């Protein structure tokens, strides 16, 4: 009987909503749009942070950079031997990497020397983003201008499509000889030094020892990189939310106005329902279902569209703001990560107040005397 009653009242609620089709559709559209924007930012920030953390998992545990005048400088390879002497440090290697401005694409590429023998002299492996802007296929030649002005070509041996394009879209892998020639970098120096630690508990001890032995260096731990990424994406997400909060405010005013003010027609109807035998609680129940149908359907459609927007269409609306300054926007599809806690928060801050806003005025209207209908 209880279920039948709910069913009957929901049935009437739905036909009531259809009667005011235009008004309710406008409301649902605005509601949905707000949810869509917020959910998109949430999905995006969360997924991108997850993605970054996955990538960084494979990053070296520790990076040692030489500093001069507060800035990062090339590090002598001789430092490697000194670090190797520290117990617990292993796989100590020099890394060569840098940025190259390509005037043809008008973009900065990241150049990196991989492990020995992975790229032979005269060849390169490029990321998807590089191949896209430079229209490169395998076996094509890409021209570079060295620091001494000499122009030389390197053959594309491979176009890689890694797990995530987020950091590798603008990447070019190059041999050590070509790298040194391009940047005019002498032998015996590297961009930085990376190393692993046998026992993760000793990370900070080893970092301290390196800092003591090589006081002109700065040590960066993987955890710190992760934190920086998190902060950057949180900050960007936060910026977007600040911008969107204006929209949210407008929506709150709009929905409050729509939900809390009952039209004369709606008041008349409530009077009729009371006169024909509906209780105050039945009227409130009907208005509760009305608010719930509008807010829950807008919420789920909004969240669904945000999911499509972020994970299938690569968030075209937020790309520039959220992915940062890189000119080669990675054309990547994020792996869907959903934080249900965030969804629940969004639900709580949108659906609950809206439903409440619809009930209060109805309750006021529903307490009118049923005989008011007889007197009109």
């Amino acid at each position: 009987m209880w279920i039948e009653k709910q069913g009957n009242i929901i049935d009437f609620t739905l036909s009531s909503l259809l009667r005011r089709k235009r008004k309710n559709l406008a409301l649902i559209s605005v509601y949905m749009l707000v949810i869509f924007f917020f959910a998109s930012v949430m999905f995006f920030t969360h997924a991108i942070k997850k993605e970054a953390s996955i990538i960084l998992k494979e990053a070296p545990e520790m990076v040692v950079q030489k500093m001069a005048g507060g800035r990062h400088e090339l590090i002598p390879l001789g430092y490697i031997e000194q670090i190797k002497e520290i117990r617990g440090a292993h796989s100590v290697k020099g890394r060569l990497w840098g940025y190259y401005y390509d005037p043809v694409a008008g973009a900065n590429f990241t150049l990196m020397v991989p492990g020995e023998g992975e790229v032979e002299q005269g060849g390169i492996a490029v990321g998807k983003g590089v191949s896209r802007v430079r229209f490169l296929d395998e076996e094509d030649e890409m021209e570079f201008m060295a620091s001494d002005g000499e122009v030389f070509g390197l053959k594309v041996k491979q176009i890689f499509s890694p797990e995530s394009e987020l950091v590798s879209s603008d990447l070019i892998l190059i041999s050590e000889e070509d790298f040194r020639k391009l940047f005019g970098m002498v032998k015996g120096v590297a961009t930085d030094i990376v190393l692993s630690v046998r026992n993760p508990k000793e990370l900070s001890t080893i970092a301290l020892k390196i800092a003591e032995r090589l006081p002109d260096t700065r040590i960066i731990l993987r955890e710190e990189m992760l934190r920086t990424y998190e902060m950057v994406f949180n900050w960007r997400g936060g910026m977007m939310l600040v911008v969107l909060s204006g929209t949210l405010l407008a929506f709150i005013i709009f929905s409050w106005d729509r939900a809390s003010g009952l039209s004369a027609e709606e008041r008349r109807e409530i009077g009729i329902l009371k006169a024909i035998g509906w209780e105050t609680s039945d009227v409130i129940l009907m208005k509760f279902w009305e608010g719930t149908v509008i807010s829950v359907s807008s919420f789920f459609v909004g969240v669904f569209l945000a999911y499509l927007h972020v994970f299938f269409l690569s968030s075209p609306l937020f790309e520039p703001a959220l992915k940062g300054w890189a000119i080669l926007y990675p054309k990547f599809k994020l792996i869907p990560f959903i934080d249900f806690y965030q969804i629940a928060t969004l639900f709580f801050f949108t659906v609950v107040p809206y439903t409440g806003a619809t009930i209060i005025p109805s309750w006021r209207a529903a307490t009118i005397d049923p005989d008011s209908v007889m007197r009109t």
Partner: protein
Amino acid sequence: MNMIQLLNIRKVFNMGRPNEFTAIHGVSLSIHPHQVTALKGPSGSGKTTLLSILGCMARPTSGRIMLFDREITSLPERFLTEIRRKTFGFVFQQFHLIKGITVLENVMLPAYPGGEGYGALRKRAMEILDLLSLSKKASSRVEWLSGGEAQRTAIARALINRPSVMIADEPTGHLDSRLSQEFMQIMGRLKQDRKTILIASHDPIVHESETVDRVIEMRDGRII
């Protein structure tokens, strides 16, 4: 046994304010079952107010109401609503149908809070519409109905909860003579079905009708 009994009923509106107004002055009245009773009198004579009190829609300021010899004057709103829903069916002067939904939905509306299954409810509503020659209009919206059809829809709605008492307030107020007579014929049929009928009207077609068993005349909130 009396169906409804009113004992020394007084109804005052806006009590204690400058615009205080006494609509009913100490009325006592018994309504007999299975009869058609008409309340007659000019506008402002207190017919509608007395009808709302009889139908448990409004509470009297003082006095007692007995329904089937049970006192219901001071029952909480919830119980009064339930009594109203189960015992009374109302036809209003303006019909007060809900626009934008169908005739069938309007008819079923008073039964929704009762929690009856949709299928059974729909079947009963269709039977009532059939009795009132409205089954063809079941899926029409109420705003497309003629005056007579709207009135029959209002009657069908009043009948959906199988009430023992029908209450009609100025039911012929917006109808021409032919439709007014048709209304009284329907009331005659309901009387045959052992319904108790209360009609407030100043229309001679109503109180001169053969269907009406008793006419109560009112003036200035008193029975004369």
